[in-house]
């Protein structure tokens, strides 16, 4: 009952949850925290579960759209000299595919899973800065709509997802296509930075009492490291995209070598973000895997400390690798050697993680349910992708296979194998918590078989295509090249992969509609999110749990110790100390507000119109200022006091 002392030290005439009966307390908590089911309620909610769900669903819509583009490319490449898609459209399609998957799917979906799960896993009632969270979602949605509406209007970017200058610069990219890409980057980075700040604050200051740093679930550790990576990596790309748009629109000279600029500066800025980006996508997946494996192995994770250290080491190392994307740009030999060594050294923490997972499975009694199947598929695929990663870390080999399908195969192995497989495992694992209903185990096995076989059939032959010299980003090839057979096989396998995803989405929607009820803890998992009902109530926990071990639901038996004393008539949560999670204060949590939505709309209008005239920054800042004033103006609510 550690919360009580703090609660009573303050002058307070409102009742706390210890003063009323359980049923009365729940009713009043719901009245305090629930989102009204009106249009205004939908637009102004700050509930991390609702926003996280929206974020995830939107990101999956972008996954479907990006996947359809991939199928379009495979259709075009299935036969030599095919004429389904012309070169201009093809350039747009591969750019849209990469940009959508990286900026509108992979990063947002990982953060969104964090937005949904982290507050539940650490036992708090809402994420920190919940209105910023709402703002972040609307900004993300606007950026995605901007990109896709532009593509539908035939002004989609056509310069590759990394938009190298001079190709993306003012001279060689006419029209608004590259500007739209650069501004879409600004949208998604803004959204990502907002979420990263919230997650850091939530994880460091809102943990349930007793959840000291060595009792945090590994997924939460992974989100913490990821959030720090985002905070340090994303500013580089925001500077890059802003300077690119300045070069293009107002004639600055950042990337013009003839006027003292530097074209290579773009690649440095981009990859200083771009390589950590890979780990921003991968580390949450590591966290998901490390959370799913113990549940199905029936024992705590093997090597919690080395795993967490490996997460942090990967995060730090990820900032020392970016030049391996630039080995063919003619950098000094010493630099190339350094970045070869640092690139290979990332295999050490990755190896530690993989051995910890294998040891956990080895020492436990694994139940091969669908989530664990996908985790096993992840381990197999990711190790293969890691192997080719060590290969392309070597300068001579990289010089040979640079810009060929070998690289395409490599990064699809690490991204799909390293992030998408764990994500699907996570959907099978956590969807019962989100919707309260189970997904089908039988369909899950078919989905896994289709996705696993389809994936390897699609991407393994690309290694050979790359070694045979097939370059990336070509819209067609000649019959004499001898690539036709393998490409046809790849395209057919892509259909198998697509069928797997189709079945997966059907299963997910069917489950959310009519799946068997899950109950609070269907997998007998040890972490706190399973301590509340499925789906969780708006206030997450009736009382804040007190944590006494790293696996609270396994080690505490039937009942968890809880802390009481939080106010139930205003939104209130417990702030705890960084290291030991000792309770420090009761802190009010912001209520629903429509202003983040309006602020996001004003920001979107500013950013989109600034593509057309620099004066938009001046005039557009007025509505932004008005909406921000509205956002922060005190409304006289009980939450405003302290």
């Amino acid at each position, binding site marked *: 009952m550690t919360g009580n002392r703090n609660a009573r030290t303050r002058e307070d005439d409102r009742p706390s949850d210890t003063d009323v009966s359980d049923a009365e307390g729940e009713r009043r*908590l*719901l009245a305090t925290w629930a989102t009204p089911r009106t249009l205004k309620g*939908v637009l102004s909610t700050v509930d991390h579960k*609702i926003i996280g*769900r*929206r974020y995830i*669903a*939107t990101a999956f*819509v972008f996954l479907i759209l990006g996947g359809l583009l991939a199928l379009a490319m495979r259709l075009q490449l299935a036969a030599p000299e095919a004429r389904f898609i*012309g*070169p*201009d459209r093809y350039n747009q399609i591969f750019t849209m595919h990469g940009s959508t998957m990286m900026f509108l799917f992979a990063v947002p979906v990982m953060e969104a899973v964090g937005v949904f799960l982290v507050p539940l896993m650490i036992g708090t009632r809402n994420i920190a800065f919940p209105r910023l969270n709402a703002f972040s979602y609307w900004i993300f*949605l606007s950026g*995605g*709509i901007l990109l*896709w*509406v*532009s*593509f*539908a*209007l*035939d002004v989609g970017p056509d310069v590759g997802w990394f938009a190298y200058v001079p190709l993306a*610069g*003012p001279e060689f990219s*006419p*029209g*608004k296509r590259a500007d739209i890409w650069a501004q879409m980057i600004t949208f998604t980075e803004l959204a990502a930075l907002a979420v990263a700040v919230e997650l850091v604050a939530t994880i460091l200051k809102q943990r349930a009492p007793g959840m000291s740093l060595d009792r945090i679930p590994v997924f939460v550790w992974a989100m913490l490291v990821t959030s720090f990576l985002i905070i340090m990596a994303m500013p580089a790309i925001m500077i890059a995209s802003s300077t690119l748009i300045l*070069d293009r*629109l*107002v*004639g600055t*000279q950042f*990337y*013009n*070598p*003839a*006027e003292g600029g530097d*074209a290579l500066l773009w690649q440095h800025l981009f990859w200083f973000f771009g390589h950590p980006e890979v780990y921003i996508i991968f580390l949450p997946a590591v966290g998901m895997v490390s959370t799913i494996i113990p549940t199905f192995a029936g024992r705590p994770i093997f090597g919690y400390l080395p795993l967490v250290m490996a997460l942090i080491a990967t995060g730090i190392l990820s900032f020392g690798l970016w030049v391996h994307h630039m080995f063919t740009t003619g950098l000094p030999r010493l630099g190339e050697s350094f970045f070869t060594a640092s690139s290979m050294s990332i295999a050490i923490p990755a190896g530690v993680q993989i051995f910890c997972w294998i040891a956990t499975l080895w020492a436990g009694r694994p139940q091969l349910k669908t989530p664990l199947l996908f985790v096993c598929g992840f381990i197999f695929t990711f190790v293969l992708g890691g192997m080719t990663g060590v290969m392309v870390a070597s300068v001579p080999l990289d010089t040979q296979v640079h810009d060929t399908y070998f690289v395409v195969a490599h990064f699809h192995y690490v991204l799909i194998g390293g992030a998408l497989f764990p994500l699907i495992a996570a959907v099978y694992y956590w969807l019962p918590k989100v*919707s*309260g209903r189970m997904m089908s185990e039988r369909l899950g096995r078919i989905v896994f078989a289709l996705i696993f076989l389809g994936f390897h059939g699609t991407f393994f032959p690309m290694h050979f295509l790359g070694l045979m010299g097939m370059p990336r980003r070509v819209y067609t090839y000649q019959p004499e090249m001898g690539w036709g057979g393998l490409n046809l096989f790849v395209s057919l396998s892509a259909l198998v992969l697509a069928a797997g995803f189709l079945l997966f989405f059907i299963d997910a*929607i069917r*489950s*959310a*509609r*009519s*799946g068997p009820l899950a109950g*609070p803890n269907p997998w007998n998992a040890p972490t706190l999110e399973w*301590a509340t*009902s*499925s*789906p*969780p*109530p*708006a206030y997450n*926990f*009736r009382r804040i*749990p007190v944590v006494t071990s790293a696996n609270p639901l396994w080690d505490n038996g039937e*009942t*968890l110790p809880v802390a009481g004393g939080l106010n139930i008539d205003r939104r209130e949560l417990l702030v705890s100390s960084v290291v030991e999670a000792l309770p420090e204060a009761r802190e009010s949590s912001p209520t629903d507000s429509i202003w983040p939505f309006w602020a996001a709309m004003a920001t979107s209008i500013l950013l989109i119109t600034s593509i*057309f005239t620099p004066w938009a920054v001046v005039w557009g800042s007025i509505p932004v200022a008005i909406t921000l004033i509205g956002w922060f103006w005190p409304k006289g609510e009980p939450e405003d006091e302290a």
Partner: protein
Amino acid sequence: MGSSGGRRRSGWSVASGTLSLCGVTLCCLACATALGWMRAPRQFRTDPPLQADLGNLRLLPNRIGGTPPESYFALGKPYEKVAYDLSQGKRLYTWFGCATCHGDGRGNIGPSFLDGWWLYGPEMISVAASIRDGRPHGMPAYRDRMTNDQIWQLAGYVRTIGAYGPSVSATARNDDPQTRPAENRGPASILFEQGPAGMKPEQGPSP
């Protein structure tokens, strides 16, 4: 621990709000696709019959002014406003050495494009005819060196050099040493000096 406050709502109704948001997104996309369908895609290589028709300039007898070919209107007059064609025109301006006589637009031994004075009128067709057929006092004919659509692209670009208002689709700066603000920066006449402009009839030899 935890209560069943949320269980009253089925998983499906929980998801419906999210799905309707996705629906709005997809509707935006569908509308944009319909609009995009009506736009002409960027053509890297013009169809040969179109290419031939673009050469049918119907000029007045004095070879100043006239009517562009029907296909020019059928295409929607792209060469005056489409960013891709303007940027191709800018590239042709460099490749065909226009700067040798016309400088960066301020003129040199040839006339300036910035001073608002067009010796043969400001219409697209007159500029295109000047490029294709040449003009007295040193302007060579490019009809055997450029394709018809390239001539239109170059004409379109030349007309933006001295535009009084910057167009959204005007070209940006090149990755070269800069001698003048780019065409998309603002009215050329207020941004920099217009150049010698020595070819006006009252100042120099009459064409």
